[in-house]
């Protein structure tokens, strides 16, 4: 987190020094700041920053891909004459522990393939999910656990 704030500070400094206030200049500053932080690795305070930044980019791309895939699935379900879906309520066991991780996961689950997060049980061990295509509960659970949750935990965990 410290490194992220430092990196934002570098980008802001770059924008101020160059007196060019556009999103492109900010991105250049961010990239340069990232490069200079990369050089300071031998003194590293926060070694996980680069891995986590990479994981965040991977998560962002994966999330958008999944969202498009889910939209096409749902659109097909809405427009096709008969209903092919087998909706059911699935309890997904959680590896995410902190409130922030669970909130992020629940929001992403709501926006991706045929699943909608309804609730978390009081012990915060299971996410209650309404799945549209739940012929096989294990498949729904493993899709969430190995896809979104795994990639999310790579970002939030040290």
């Amino acid at each position: 987190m410290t490194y992220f704030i430092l990196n934002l500070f570098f980008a802001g400094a770059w924008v101020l020094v160059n007196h060019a206030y556009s999103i492109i200049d900010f991105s250049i500053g961010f990239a340069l700041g990232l490069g200079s932080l990369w050089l300071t690795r031998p003194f590293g305070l926060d070694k996980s920053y680069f891995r986590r930044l990479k994981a965040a980019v991977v998560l962002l791309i994966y999330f958008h891909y999944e969202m498009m895939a889910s939209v096409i699935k749902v659109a097909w379900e809405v427009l096709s004459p008969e209903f092919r879906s087998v909706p059911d309520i699935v309890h997904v066991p959680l590896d995410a522990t902190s409130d922030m991780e669970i909130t992020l996961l629940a929001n992403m689950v709501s926006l991706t393939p045929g699943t909608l997060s309804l609730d978390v049980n009081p012990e915060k061990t299971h996410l209650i999910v309404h799945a549209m295509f739940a012929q096989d509960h294990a498949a729904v659970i493993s899709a969430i656990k190995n896809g979104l949750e795994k990639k999310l935990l790579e970002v939030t965990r040290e």
Partner: protein
Amino acid sequence: METLISLCLLIGTFFTLVAAIGILRMPDIYMRIHAVTKAGTVGIGLILLSVALFFADSAVTSRVIGIMLFIIVTTPAAAHLLGKTMLKSKYRMWRNLTIR
């Protein structure tokens, strides 16, 4: 560029239309929430994207990014609250009996 903008606009309106049809057609509230959250978000996102591409101006683009952020944060929250209340009130959901 013109083609790309019109394509984004068309696909965006198509998905918004799908969301609207979904509200009317889906058998129970959970399925309706599915249709609205997913198709609605992507539809609005694509329409906003075409707006940003059309004006190609940082003042417009920054607002578009702001609107997108708010939609991505608020839509799942609203869906979650609706779903949670229905689950708490022991709502009987629709099951597909023709396949099982």
